[in-house]
């Protein structure tokens, strides 16, 4: 179980022959992910043969889906080509599209997100994200596989390494996970906290959710409003309490502008919704244990 992906998910890697794509394809296969095809325009008919595997490469996502019954895709292609690659995957019927690529212009992402949401049924995760893992079943993206442990907690985060830090702390603290998703640090992303909370609500395996937010935007506030209806306990954590306003803190979306998107506003929204907010990462496992 878990959400969005599981052991039956068949994955296409767009940009499988690139440095990142090639490396992480091997890590995904090691984890047990069914990587069934690669897509590289112009290299159709060739095979990806690294680390003792052989995966067919196709010119288009559509042909890869037709030949392999793939239902998910991960996008590693450079930012100039990534917007089109995402829309191609959505058009070809991929149900889940994970975009690792960073640095995509925001106006491009506006087009992509609105295309994917209005014309297709695909769930877009990212861009500029570490991906998604349904523990012991399927890993799509670049998260380190060894830190996860099967269990009842779902996790949603805007961050990369901070997500790993939290997962690692949960695992060491004896709290296992169902599905963990990094939704990405850009101002315009496909899937938001709220979308994924609804997915977790419907998942029998998930008994509680950890939500890792950061400064910028108001997705956390929007999610907080929904939590009382969720019927499952949530623990929240916000990074960037010390971040100065007007400065972009690494992620394109992590910026307090015009007094909006502060850590205080997000923490307040969670507290108002009755959601405990951990002060440190270490506080998350005990808070969860209380609620489970």
């Amino acid at each position, binding site marked *: 179980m878990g959400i969005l992906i599981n052991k039956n998910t068949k994955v296409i890697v767009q940009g499988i022959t690139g440095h990142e794509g090639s490396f992480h394809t091997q890590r995904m296969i090691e984890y047990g992910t069914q990587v069934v095809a690669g897509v590289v325009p112009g290299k159709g008919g060739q095979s990806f043969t690294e680390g003792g595997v052989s995966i067919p490469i196709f010119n288009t996502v559509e042909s890869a889906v037709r030949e392999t019954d793939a239902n998910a895709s991960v996008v590693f292609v450079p930012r100039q080509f990534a917007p089109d690659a995402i829309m191609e995957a959505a058009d070809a019927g991929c149900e889940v599209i994970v975009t690792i690529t960073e640095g995509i212009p*925001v*106006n491009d992402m506006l087009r992509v997100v609105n295309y994917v949401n209005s014309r297709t049924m695909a769930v877009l995760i990212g861009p500029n994200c570490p991906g998604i893992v349904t523990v012991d079943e399927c890993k799509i993206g670049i998260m380190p596989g060894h830190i996860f442990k099967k269990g009842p907690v779902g996790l949603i985060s805007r961050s*990369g390494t901070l997500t790993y830090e939290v997962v690692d702390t949960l695992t060491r603290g004896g709290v296992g996970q169902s599905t963990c998703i990094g939704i990405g640090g850009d101002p*315009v992303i496909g899937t938001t906290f709220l979308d994924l909370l609804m997915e977790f609500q419907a998942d029998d395996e998930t008994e509680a959710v950890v939500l890792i937010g950061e400064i910028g*935007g108001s997705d956390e506030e929007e999610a907080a409003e929904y939590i009382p209806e969720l019927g499952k306990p949530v623990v929240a954590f916000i*990074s960037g309490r*010390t971040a100065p306003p007007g400065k972009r803190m690494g992620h394109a979306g992590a910026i307090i502008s015009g007094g909006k998107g502060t850590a205080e506003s997000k923490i307040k929204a969670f507290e108002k919704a009755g959601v405990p907010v951990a002060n440190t990462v270490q506080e998350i496992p005990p808070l969860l244990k209380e609620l489970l």
Partner: protein
Amino acid sequence: MKIHEYQAKELFSQFDIPILPGRVAFNVEEALSIAGEFGLPVVIKAQVHVGGRGKAGGIKVAKTFQDVEVHSKNILSMEIKGLPVKKVLIAKAVDIREEYYLGLTLDRDARLIVFIFSTAGGIDIEEVAATSPEKITRVNIDPLFGVMDFQLKKLIYDSRVDNDKIKDILKIARKLYECYIAVDASLAEINPLAILTSGEVVALDAKLIIDDNALYRQPKLEQLREIGDDLDELEAEAQKLHLAYVHMPKDKRGSIGVMGNGAGLVMNTMDEVTRAGGMPNNFLDIGGTATPEVVEASLNHILKDEVVQGILINVFGGIVRCDIVAEGLLKAYERLPRKVPIVIRMTGTNEDLARELLEGTPLIYASSTEEGACKIVELVGRQN
């Protein structure tokens, strides 16, 4: 990336958005000669990358050449919100009948573009939104479809605008959207959009912010970047070194340097330092790879601020090998221009090997972010 009013106006005029002639002066002599060319009166406007120039005295009308001399001299020696004014725009002064606001920006919550119009122009739009929101109309634009005529009509006709000018304003709005998309803007603003006593409709001011992620395909705009203009010295230098570095503002700047791999992790490390009673000096994200070269360049950069008395490094390994990072750090430490206590928190592959390597060296190992923060604060002393 912010660009100056005069640069934005140049771009606007390429899209047939009417502007008034103007030129930039870097000193009083140039200001006088431009004023002589245009004929009096002229308006003198500070060119800096902050809002609120008018309130700060950075915009003046000059009716005589003596005025031009006095005002341009004053403005060119002025600092506005901490930024020194290095140039002024000299433009022909005109008589204004009405001032409106027209702007386009990203609506992050709606995941659409938003067109904003107001009949209360010439003042800060956020102020108008707070005091008289009824004077503002908005329309969301889906970039998949582009802007549609009915949307613009809704935007403009709902306001109390002279009917004979509506066509001109609609045309400018269409052009502004065209420009917004073509230059990869995240903000395009005309404030005020003025109706002159002569009946002309012109963009009296222009503001454009370009999406940094799009500069790779906007080479001409990239050339307009003025490193250092809205950055402090160390931030400007970091940009040249391709380091994701933010210097804390002066009033909140402590003596603990902070670096790590990943933006969220580094932000959290700063939060932990503060919780432990210290004050971070900076934010520095070394990115996913954490190569010895990047780590060394980052350490050197943080140490350029003499205030820094200790550094906390936070590396979540995952697939990075901790022993290699530790070896690289030890070598880098030898070469550092000045030695301060360094605490390193690492988890990941070969964590134990890394811990052994660091034992008995000046580099102090920590196994969690919290522990690392406590150790560095202990070494540097409490600050809050």
